[in-house]
């Protein structure tokens, strides 16, 4: 199986601070991969770098065999990478419907059946489709951000901490939806602080610590690993 996304030893700087120190990883087609780690490990930075919002100083990012290291963010979306940014970035002054339509922006007009699919997956959003997105609850906004990203029919969907700031029930729901998406064949790169949850629903995981990959492998194996248990799962190990 060839890699859909291949990230090769990227280094990212914020001014003089080296936030990502030579990280390499890959996402294969149909897989769901997570990057886990504590605050400041560089997880979000990596996602932003892949989607072109930040430029790496060195290293290379390949998507579908093509170099996208220097591509503009909007060009990267067109190539098929959707990014659900951290913190539920919805268009607050647009209605739910308009937000979802914006997701299909790269394809011109949103197809009627695509909208139908989105509403079938997120029934809450159908009820609220005329409401301004800024008036939705946190969980609903997260669903809206996901629905919007899916409208671009991405080959790879990147999600940045979808469970952040949500109640346990909503976290459960969001992870259920991620599992459903995976079952439907979407390739997903997930960034999470909730290591336990992430390890349970993903195929492979890379553990990040202060800008470096310290562990990687099958999520199932990592879940049993003493090191991971000690550091992230609260086990005594």
């Amino acid at each position, binding site marked *: 199986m060839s890699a859909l996304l291949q990230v090769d030893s990227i280094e990212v700087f914020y001014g003089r601070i080296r936030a990502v120190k030579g990280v390499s990883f890959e996402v294969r087609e149909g897989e769901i991969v997570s990057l886990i780690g504590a605050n400041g490990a560089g997880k979000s930075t990596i996602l932003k770098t892949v*989607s072109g*919002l930040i430029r790496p100083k060195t290293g290379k990012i390949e998507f579908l065999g093509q170099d996208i290291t220097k591509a*503009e*963010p*909007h060009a990267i*979306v*067109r190539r098929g990478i*959707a*990014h*659900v*940014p951290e913190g539920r*970035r*919805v*268009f*607050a*002054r*647009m*209605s739910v*419907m*308009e937000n979802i*339509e*914006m*997701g299909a*922006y*790269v394809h*011109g007009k949103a197809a*009627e059946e695509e*909208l*139908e699919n989105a509403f079938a997956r997120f029934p809450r959003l159908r009820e609220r489709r*005329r*409401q*301004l997105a800024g008036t939705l609850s946190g969980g609903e906004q997260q669903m809206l*951000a996901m629905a*919007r*990203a899916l409208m*671009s029919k991405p080959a790879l969907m990147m999600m940045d901490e979808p469970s952040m700031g949500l109640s346990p029930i909503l976290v459960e729901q969001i992870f259920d939806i991620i599992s459903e998406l995976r079952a439907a064949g979407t390739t997903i790169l997930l960034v999470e602080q909730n290591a336990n949850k992430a390890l349970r629903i993903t195929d492979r995981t890379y553990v990040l610590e202060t800008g470096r990959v310290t562990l990687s492998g099958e999520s199932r194996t990592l879940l049993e690993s003493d090191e991971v248990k000690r550091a992230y799962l609260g086990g005594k190990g």
Partner: protein
Amino acid sequence: MKTKRNRIPTLLGYAINLALFAAFLILGDGLIQSGAISKYYSKVVMLIGINVILAVSLNVATGYLGQLPLGHAGFMAVGAYASAIFMTRTALPASPAFPIGILIGGAVAAAFGIIIGIPALRLRGDYLAIITLGFGEIIRVVLLNIDDVLGFTLTNGAAGLQNIPKATTFLNTFVCVGLTCFLIHTMMKSRHGRAILALRDNEIAADSCGINATYYKTLGFTASAFFAGVAGALYAGYIGILNPGGFGFMKSIEILVMVVLGGMGSMVGSVLSATVLTAVPELLRAFAGYRMIVYALLLIVVMIFKPSGLMGTYDFSLSRLLGKLFYGSSRKKQGKAGDAR
């Protein structure tokens, strides 16, 4: 899930609006020609038209794009001078020359919009305000100093550019007002307009939807500059003499006040407040010194009681209103444009 239409057909809507606008033009022109509106008042009305274009164009950058440029008078000045230089040199008679002059004014201002927009729009908020303020002042100072370039008299410096043909009339001013509003309205209803609104709401989310942020910011900014240039050209033909001093920082603020008072993001608001804020100081001339106090109090009162501006982000649509009358309003209003608020 087909959306049921409760609006009248788009073309019919355009036709009704066009007919009403034409009636307004004919009526206004008739009243002025017959002398029912005095020369003084017709001048005020023309100034209102020019200020409406300025406010509506600035609203594109402030209300729709969500930026805060403070150099709008600079674009107006560029348009005014470009058109005036053309008008004083051309051999064409005024009637064919003026539309060309207006377009030249708009085009040159738009070119400056691109030149200034590309570096300025990399910044946001206060920083963008300051950089555009700087550019606006640079334009003014340059106009003051390029009176004589390689033996060519260009702007005539501080003495002012004189004997500009007074080609601005009620009719051509308000045709420009109508065209400005129509073009900006259609732009904002289009896919490009949606992209601009998305950028205003959340730039990172817009990026992640595949919207080219730099392109659309520059587009909005340039459109804003273009129509400011048109207003400048009209102003040059209205006043007959141009002096860089009139296009300073205070003029930019004056236009910004109109937009903020009307409600950022509402075209109707910009039109209304440009009208009121141009008319009020004129109508209060009888009170001489007190009129600026009334003007200032008006601003304070509106900002206290309606900080989002007179109209908020609401945009009046005759087509929507007629649609409701004909088809009833059994459905809840669609959350379009800003009427959801």
